[in-house]
């Protein structure tokens, strides 16, 4: 019989299960395995959540910001080049500096965005267009300047070619880059806001097993409580509460990040729409009577801008927008009745009722709101990450404690059968 049992492992286990010490041994084994398994699964789940937040904080969000900077700086460079041309003569030092700062910013932000090319192969086209055509664009603008300095009207044609390159190739590529990076942010945020159902389920199952084991022992040994099992249960409860608490804080942080990210997105788009509208306003005047398509593009951008400002703009931004619209209406009236000089004055002049001043004020408002919104976003992501700090080691440690305690608790009872 014994020989038979030794030969057949299944019979050995069933044989073991028939005796009480055998059952206790199996129970100890079950408890150790399940505490360790639940600990490992919970730890990996928390780790996943933490990884999503790390990816968000260290990559997606900075990349989306870089993409937004590329887009903004390029739109600004185009608008600035048009303004410099409209002002006539050699462009002012301020406009030149602004253009140079835009190009430097676009190139720097582009190098950040390009570093992640292996992660998003779908961006290869957009990124190679951006980094390949930006030097071509600046080359055309410099050729235009050189001709302008010599009084050659062909300079205007080079500037038109540069602007066409910007509008037909660079800006669409920058837009698709921004859209993709922004979608990555939304995706990572979505991953971080799932409620901790798995952790809760695993923890509850483990507690149920521990309580059942306790009741079984109570029945078998007539002792009310087993210290080891109580310790294991306590460790599991602490682990579950820790994970739930940390996860809930992280999820709430990520949820508020989602709101912040949406505000950042709306403000970024508003800022780019502002720049595009300004570029079109200026080019309408440069075209001198044949700029109907630019004026239509301006109207489309202004309408988009109004919608975006209604969603996320500050009161001051909305007021500045209205001021700009007023100036634009007066500017168009002047141009349409043939007073070109007055129209250019309204477009570029420093007066408080001019379009330039209102545009600059709106751009500044949007930049400040955007900076604040982005600070809010990074802060709520940081808060979410902070909540998860130390959760993984704690879960692992508590799982080990629970396993050891459960095993020790049953070992005490087993000793009584020796």
């Amino acid at each position, binding site marked *: 019989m014994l020989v038979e049992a030794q030969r057949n492992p299944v019979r050995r286990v069933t044989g073991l299960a028939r005796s009480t010490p055998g059952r206790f041994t199996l129970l100890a084994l079950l408890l150790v395995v399940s505490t360790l398994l639940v600990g490992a699964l919970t730890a990996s789940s928390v780790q996943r959540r933490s990884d999503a937040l790390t990816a968000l904080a260290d990559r997606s969000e900075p990349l989306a910001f870089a993409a937004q900077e590329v887009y903004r700086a390029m739109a600004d460079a185009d608008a600035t080049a048009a303004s410099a041309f*409209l*002002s*006539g*003569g050699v462009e002012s030092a301020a406009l030149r500096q602004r253009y140079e700062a835009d190009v430097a910013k676009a190139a720097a932000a582009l190098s950040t965005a390009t570093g992640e*090319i*292996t992660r998003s*192969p779908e961006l*290869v*086209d957009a990124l*190679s*267009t951006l980094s*390949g*055509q930006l030097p*071509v*664009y600046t080359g*055309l603008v410099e050729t235009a300047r050189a*001709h*302008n300095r*010599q*009084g*050659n*009207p*062909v*300079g*205007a*044609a*080079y500037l*038109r*070619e*540069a602007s*066409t*390159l910007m509008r*037909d*190739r660079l800006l669409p590529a920058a837009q698709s880059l921004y859209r993709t990076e922004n979608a990555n942010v939304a995706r990572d945020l979505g991953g971080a806001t799932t409620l901790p159902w798995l952790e809760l389920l695993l923890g509850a199952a483990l507690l149920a097993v521990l309580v059942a084991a306790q009741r079984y022992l109570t029945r078998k040994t007539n002792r009310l409580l087993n210290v080891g099992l109580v310790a294991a249960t306590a460790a599991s409860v602490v682990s579950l509460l820790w994970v739930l608490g940390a996860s809930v804080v992280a999820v709430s942080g990520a949820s508020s990040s989602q709101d912040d990210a949406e505000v950042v997105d709306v403000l970024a788009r508003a800022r780019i729409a502002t720049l595009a509208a300004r570029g079109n306003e200026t080019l309408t005047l440069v*075209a*001198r*009577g*044949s700029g109907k398509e630019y004026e239509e593009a301006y109207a489309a951008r202004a309408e988009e801008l109004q919608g975006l400002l209604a969603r996320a703009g500050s009161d001051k931004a909305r007021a500045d927008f209205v001021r700009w619209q007023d100036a634009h209406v007066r500017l168009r009236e002047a141009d349409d*009745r*043939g007073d*070109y000089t007055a129209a*250019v004055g309204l477009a570029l002049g420093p007066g408080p009722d001019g379009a330039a001043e209102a545009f600059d004020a709106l751009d500044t408002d949007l930049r400040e709101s955007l900076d604040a919104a982005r600070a809010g976003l990074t802060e709520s992501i940081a808060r979410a990450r902070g909540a998860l700090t130390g959760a993984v080691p704690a879960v692992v440690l508590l799982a080990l404690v629970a396993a050891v305690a459960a095993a020790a608790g049953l070992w005490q009872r087993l000793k009584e059968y020796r």
Partner: protein
Amino acid sequence: MKRAGVRALLAGVVAAVAAACAPVPSAAPDIGGASAVVPRPANATELTAPPSSAAAAVPSCDATASLRPQGALPAVGQMPAGSTMERIVRSGRLRVGVDQNTYLMGFRNPFSGQLEGFDVDMAREVARALFGDPEKIQFKVLTSEQRIPALENGEVDIVVRTMTINCERWQKVNFSTVYYQAGQRVLVPSSSDATGIESLGGKKVCATRGSSSLVNVANAPSRPIAVEVPNWTDCLVMLQQGQVDAISTDDTILAGFAAQDPYTKIVGPQFTAEPYGMAMPKASEDFVRFVNALLERLRADGTWATIHRRWLGEPPAPPVAKYRD
């Protein structure tokens, strides 16, 4: 039997090891940028067929003959009641279609941002005759192909923009008498060995959309490839960037290019005659007669010669006016 089994096992092991050691290529995408994308002016296209004329059969006419002036030029402030001139004076400014891309004829001075040139000065003379003030003028910049629609839609009162008088255009607009006699020639890089339109077969030649120059290029017997662009300076950009081999249009416009780029030369004889006229809407015949009376005066009192000297050098005798009554 046993040996075969061992061999099969060995082969299997070798295959598994080989599969495990097969090289895993990098998933990183290619660098790209193998071919440079050349920037082009907006809406530059190569023509595959000559531009179609609106009317298939244009009745022949004496194109340069315009409407005879009726009496003397009315003085400022005394425009005949109900006339086109009176309506323009009441509107407060003369709306003129000009160019800002043709150096020396109609161009934007990069320093001042103002429009200048031979055509612009001629337009200012019309404003002076109407208002006594050459500044009572609203310029509307037109491309070659926008000239006739702008007149037909009443967006401008007059077009003074290197516009060749021909019978096809007489169908849609009225022309003044000839105020400048140009002719089409060819501009090439100074390194080119082309000698004229006849040596440009299969080469790319640039002209603006809607211009008579483009039609002449597309119909040239040597069969050059016509490339059309919106503005004349776009042609110079394409020539400087090596995207076209030559520009062919009126010698006045070519002279403006040569003045901006010393590495170009004008070659070949004039192969067409391009008489320039000021264009006005078909309905306003009284205004045509008024402008013709003004041109008579400008030719006679030396104003035409002065404007010519300012922009285009020593003046020849002004073109002689022809009338059809």
